[in-house]
């Protein structure tokens, strides 16, 4: 058992993978709490898919995917916000157009990239065991940026999420706050893609946060419980990836989904038990 838990960390790639897994597990739900309460899950999914061309370009140029994905992610997030505003078509339609178009562009680039060995499965499903020392350092740096951003804008983010009109009238620049959130979302997604992959980073972004939402009473609680469940899911996924030779994204997503399932069933039972308790008390009275 001890060997199962600690054995893998005699390899330095496992230590790097552990650091990235914990960062992903914590950061995704902390931001995901805003994503679920603002109803931006589709935006998150679209953003993850849309950075594919930038990541392929990075491989073609032989640089770290971060170098291209971070600025591209932020730019695409801002573009998605502004396309709806400028064209007058609905926001989910414009997000869908950019999502499909950019993902398709990435796939075409991949199919033509014959001179580099890019494992598309790793890109789409995540391969946390393959992260480099640079990836770890950049992830740490970006995590610091995201945490600082969330701390600095916490009150404005909370106000604009709960009551956007009241917040705008009170003097908060809601447009800027929305862009700040999108930029932070782009950073978190780029960190998350390494571990969970483009297709499944959504699972880390929204599932642990949604589990936190079922359990916690207040918003900060949603963030903290989400972060705890996210970290446990990510590290469990890492073990499954190492011991069972699974791609890390699906392994993490499955653990996170299992936590959500348990919380959903548990909450339902707790509610019906409380209802019965109330009915019994009424009868006794």
């Amino acid at each position: 058992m001890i060997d199962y838990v600690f054995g893998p960390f005699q390899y330095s790639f496992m230590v790097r993978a552990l650091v990235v897994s914990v960062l992903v597990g914590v950061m995704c739900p902390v931001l995901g709490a805003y994503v679920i309460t603002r109803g931006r899950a589709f935006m998150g999914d679209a953003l993850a898919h849309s950075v594919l061309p930038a990541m392929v370009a990075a491989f073609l140029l032989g640089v770290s995917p971060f170098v291209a994905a971070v600025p591209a992610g932020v730019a695409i997030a801002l573009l998605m916000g502004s396309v709806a505003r400028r064209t007058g078509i609905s926001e989910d339609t414009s997000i869908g157009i950019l999502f499909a178009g950019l993902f398709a562009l990435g796939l075409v680039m991949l199919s033509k990239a014959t001179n580099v060995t890019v494992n598309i499965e790793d890109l789409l499903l995540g391969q946390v065991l393959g992260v480099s020392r640079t990836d770890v350092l950049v992830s740490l740096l970006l995590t610091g940026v995201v945490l600082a951003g969330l701390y600095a804008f916490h009150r404005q983010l909370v106000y604009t999420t709960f009551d956007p009109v009241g917040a705008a009238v009170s003097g908060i620049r809601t447009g800027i706050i929305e862009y700040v959130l999108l930029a932070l979302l782009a950073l978190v997604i780029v960190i998350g893609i390494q571990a969970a992959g483009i297709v499944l980073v959504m699972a880390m972004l929204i599932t642990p946060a949604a589990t936190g939402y079922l359990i916690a009473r207040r918003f900060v609680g949603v963030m903290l419980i989400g972060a705890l469940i996210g970290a446990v899911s990510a590290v469990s996924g890492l073990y499954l990836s190492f011991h069972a030779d699974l791609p890390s994204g699906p392994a993490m997503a499955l653990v996170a989904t299992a936590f959500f399932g348990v919380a959903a069933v548990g909450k339902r039972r707790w509610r019906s038990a409380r209802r019965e308790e109330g009915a019994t008390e009424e009868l006794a009275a």
Partner: protein
Amino acid sequence: MNSEPGIAIRDVVVEHDGFQALEDVTFAVPSGTLMGVLGPNGAGKSTLFDAIAGVHPITSGQITLSGMGQRRGALAYVPQRDSINWSFPATALDVVMMGLSGRVAWYRGPSKHDREIARSCLERVRLWERRGALMTELSGGQRQRVFIARALAQDARIILLDEAFSGVDVAAQEGIVRVLQSLRDEGRIVLLATHDLTNLAERFDQVLCINRHVCACGPPEEAFTPEVLEELYGSHGVEFAQGNGLAAGGRQ
């Protein structure tokens, strides 16, 4: 605050997608006024509030808010129920703290003084005991009082409440009115949009009747002529109002 707040609206036109939502609206509100803004659905009550609050541009005309200084938060807006994101888990105290977000520096949490302000605002609307309750656990009237406490926390001089009585029973409406009257007595301006024609004369100092244009503006007992009521609500409105002794013409 050195000078008293005031609202002056002159010849204001607001367009929505080429449709005139408000036509040549002119009226003024002096400090220390509790005004009811009345009109049927689609009369432009919310548009008027959006224009005063600066969240909807006006096509022409002029809106002057005086006695506000340059301070953020001098105007507070309690929007309609459906523009609040109720899936966000906020307690009554969280909502009042939002009113302080303009004063608290980004790098620190709320101070003891800030917490005292939040406490006194919630005590004023008699909800301090329910500070830990989620907004979704409160009744319609209690929610409105929390939003009023938030406006107090940001020390708003002008408070706009859109459909504040919707989904609120008459007894709770009276509770809201009493709080608003005490704010009016401090020199603040309170504008409340409503469909509800109950006890208008006891509740409001002034009423503004709009149906895309101003039909009447003045004390309730003078503003409600049968002509105004017909313009607002058609013949049913006149019958209803006369039955309630509301219309000025009906009392004669």
